[in-house]
């Protein structure tokens, strides 16, 4: 289902969604049109992504769009919101009042460029950042230290990604098949060694969130419970984030 439709359903259920808008399937005209629609319907948060390549999906023979990339998408959306104009230059009667986000993968290469690229995204308009799933906490800490050095943690809200592992098969699948996801062998081994994988998966996820909480400059986490959405409330409660703490 499209993120637009799912976001609207979330909104109708009383939740505040983050709508994901990828550049793979839509050109700049469609993306701007969707943004206006989303804002008009009350969707406030928009995550700008280039999108997973179609080769990873179930319709590999499809043609992709990639008229623009995620950084250009941010640039266009910010122009619409702050300058009340569409990219072509025409004035908007009403600017889309949205909070713009981007993703960053601290585990992708070239390592020394990842923070610079985060800076580009923030310059282009990102106000919040959702990172790829954090399994390798040491590498994430190194990345965050570079982020702080450049002062980027003060320019955008960084949300670290966490993924609860439901089964050994799921962990292996994510390690080998999900683009950009890096799962250390030690994590796989820990899952392999236990009998009750699900409760160990929750435990590991809660541990990870606790570790992340202590890293300076991180403003939150986003839980990607892939095909295990029902576990989210338990994780949130166990980490003491529900009820929502006063910060």
């Amino acid at each position, binding site marked *: 289902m499209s993120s637009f439709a799912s976001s609207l359903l979330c909104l109708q259920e009383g939740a505040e969604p983050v709508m994901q808008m990828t550049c793979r399937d839509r050109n700049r005209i469609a993306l701007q049109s969707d943004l206006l629609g989303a804002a008009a319907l009350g969707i406030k948060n928009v995550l700008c992504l280039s999108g*997973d*390549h179609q080769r*990873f999906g179930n319709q590999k023979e499809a043609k992709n769009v990639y008229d623009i990339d995620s*950084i*250009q998408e941010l640039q266009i959306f910010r122009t619409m919101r702050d300058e009340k104009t569409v990219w072509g230059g025409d004035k908007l009667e009403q600017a889309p009042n949205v909070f713009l986000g981007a993703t960053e993968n601290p585990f992708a290469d*070239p390592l020394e*460029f990842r923070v*610079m690229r985060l800076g580009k995204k923030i310059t282009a308009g990102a106000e919040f950042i959702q990172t790829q799933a954090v399994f390798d906490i040491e590498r994430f800490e190194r990345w965050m230290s570079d982020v702080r050095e450049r002062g980027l943690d003060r320019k955008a809200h960084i949300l670290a990604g966490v993924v609860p592992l439901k089964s050994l098969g799921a962990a292996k699948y994510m390690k080998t098949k999900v683009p*950009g996801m890096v799962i250390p062998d030690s994590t796989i081994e820990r899952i392999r060694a236990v009998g009750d994988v699900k409760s160990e998966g929750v435990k590991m996820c809660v541990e990870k969130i606790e570790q992340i909480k202590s890293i300076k400059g991180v403003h939150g986490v986003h839980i990607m419970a892939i095909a295990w959405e029902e576990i989210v409330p338990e994780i949130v409660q166990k980490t003491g984030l529900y009820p929502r703490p006063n910060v």
Partner: protein
Amino acid sequence: MIIAEQKPLTEICRIVENDHKILVAGCKSCVAICLAGGEKEVGILAESLRLYSDLNNKEWEISEVVVERQCEKEWVREIGPSIEGKDSVVSIACGVGAQVVQELYPDARIVSGLNTSNMGAPDEPGIFLEKCGGCGDCVLHLTGGICPIARCAKSMLNGPCGGSQNGKCEVNPDTPCAWDQIYNSLKRLGRLNLIEKVIPPKNWIPSSSGGPRKIVRAEAVLTPEEKKTKEGVD
């Protein structure tokens, strides 16, 4: 150069199935270099078609011809006599060459025996890599001499995406990540400042979304008088 590869023999046979007199027409340029449609490949394909015909009682009459460049009318005119009386011409030039032959001989049935793939270069013997996306608005001066349009799976202008791992592209681990290459090239050249700047949305008008593109070099265009004189000479 143009990189192409031959269609499977069974597909070519299916295309010309109901024909009798068949000409295999090659080209000595790009497709000869990428071992798809040069003189040697014409000989091999023609012989393969003859064998197929013998084995399947097709009674095909297969003849062969090669021109210097099938994309230029001046050269293609040379093969007029060979095309005469043929039921089909299997062009194993690139798709450009095959179309030029069709334009010059509108009553002949020109079919392509190749799949034309890209604008690229030989990398090492037997390996050919795509290099240029033909976008009509070159950005190589910004990207360390590496084309992100053709060489990045997402044609990103502000890469690399989150799928770049150990210098490889997430889509195919055999493919180098173009943006990893761009980063390293700009670093070598001492121009990393170029990658720090956001490249704005690209103008795709000079690219291929507006129908066939046309480039006019006014100084080379013939006047009506010059055309008449030339036609007289031809």
